[in-house]
């Protein structure tokens, strides 16, 4: 789905921190949305977390840097990191170039599937409202 010029695939879940989640069984793959990467501009460094680490929904667990801005990434689901995209350490711009594919960040073994209820779908009116209100607030578009 395209909302105000930004791509949001229909099969993904989204949170208010501009991350996406692709759910397969109890494994959640997390990345940054097209909206987030465009706001952040060119990413120059991603601190890739180690596998095995436990993360908590809504809490920061990794950082990245773009244009002297250090941003934190909040976990989209609680659980243990099964795999991290180590390619990002060498090619951080994958986050910009391929936010929904090669730019994925981590795969988390979700410990509580109920948490998905806290997330949104691109087709949810609440999600479109969130993006539009963010754009209005920040005078984008």
């Amino acid at each position: 789905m395209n909302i105000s010029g930004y791509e949001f695939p229909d099969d993904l879940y989204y949170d208010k921190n501009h991350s996406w989640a692709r759910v397969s069984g109890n494994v959640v793959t997390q990345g940054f949305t097209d909206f987030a990467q465009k706001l952040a501009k060119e990413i120059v460094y991603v601190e890739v977390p180690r596998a095995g680490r436990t993360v908590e929904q809504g809490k920061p667990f990794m950082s990245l840097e773009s244009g002297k801005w250090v941003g934190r990434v909040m976990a989209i689901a609680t659980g243990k990191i099964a795999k991290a995209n180590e390619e990002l350490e060498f090619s951080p711009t994958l986050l910009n170039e391929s936010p929904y594919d090669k730019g994925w960040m981590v795969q988390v073994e979700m410990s509580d599937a109920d948490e998905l209820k806290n997330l949104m779908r691109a087709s949810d009116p609440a999600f479109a409202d969130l993006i539009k209100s963010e754009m209005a607030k920040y005078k984008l578009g």
Partner: protein
Amino acid sequence: MPSDVRLIDLKLVPPIRSQTIYHALAYALDPSSPDTIILVGPTDPYVCIGFHQELEKEVDVEYCRAHGLPMVRREVGGGAVYLDQNQVFMQWIFHRGALPADLGERFALYVKPLVETYHALGIPANYRPINDVHVRGKKIGGTGAAQMGEAEVVVGSLMFDFNFDLMARILKVSSEKMRDKIFQSLNEYMTTMTRELGHTPDRDTVVKIYLEKCAAALGRDIVPGEPTAKELQLAERLDRQFATDEWLHQKGGLRQVGVKIHEDVRVLEAAHKTPGGLVRVTARVREGRIDDVTLSGDFTMLPKFAPGALELALRGTALEESAVHARIAEVYHSVSIQSPGVTMEELTKAVMLLTASNQ
């Protein structure tokens, strides 16, 4: 009606506190906290590194220790910098929704009052996206930003004066030629209020102008205030945390090849082993062109002035293989250069190695 912005003018505080204070306000920020601007400077000089940098790779730690220069890691991005009393840091700690989310727009907003302050002083500064302030192509301070807890932080400085010599000295570099080139480049491509005006303006006068410009840019009143007890407690805790080896020496993977002088200028060095000996190329690259270059190493080249002729000829050349080779070939033929084991191709390769690291 927009809420007021709290101003905390701390004047001078110990080096570590000049960094921890804005981290503390950011992490203490809750829905009831005001947006805040801190003005502060350090009582003593120190070296500050970016969040994702690795201290030992960027800073001459031994030199800093020997000269009593504390080293502090900040949670803001960017590179290592030498700081002292000649700068006033302006640290904005705002609620996320109170600043533009787009990084370019956020820096533009932060830089606006800074540029206008310089204008009011008669300094023709301009915003050089994404986060520099320039005066006639010379940088007069940079900015940095970070997301900390619920806050967005933007920091920068009013550059009253700057110690170019120590800035070049504290960096870890691959050769003294590189250090010389950095020093020379800082002198050529950075400036300060003192250099522009011929005297150092009064701090209070400059700060007063800056705050007026901030109020206008933000469309909000700026009201003097103090840190809360909770914020101060957190600052004390961060003072201790930032002083630990674990914090200072943590591994960081941000590779900054060469030294960025400003958005358009970078100093780079490359070494290439040729059959005729090692060729070291130390260069300043400006907007993709060689601005200045020094050739050194243990190779033999005749006539004696040949390396100098090549250096001169390469100035202004686009850092592209065909252009570099053509210029080198021109000099080789016109001066009849003899350089056993260092062919034109080898020399071109040595120069082009700069681009391998020029990212």
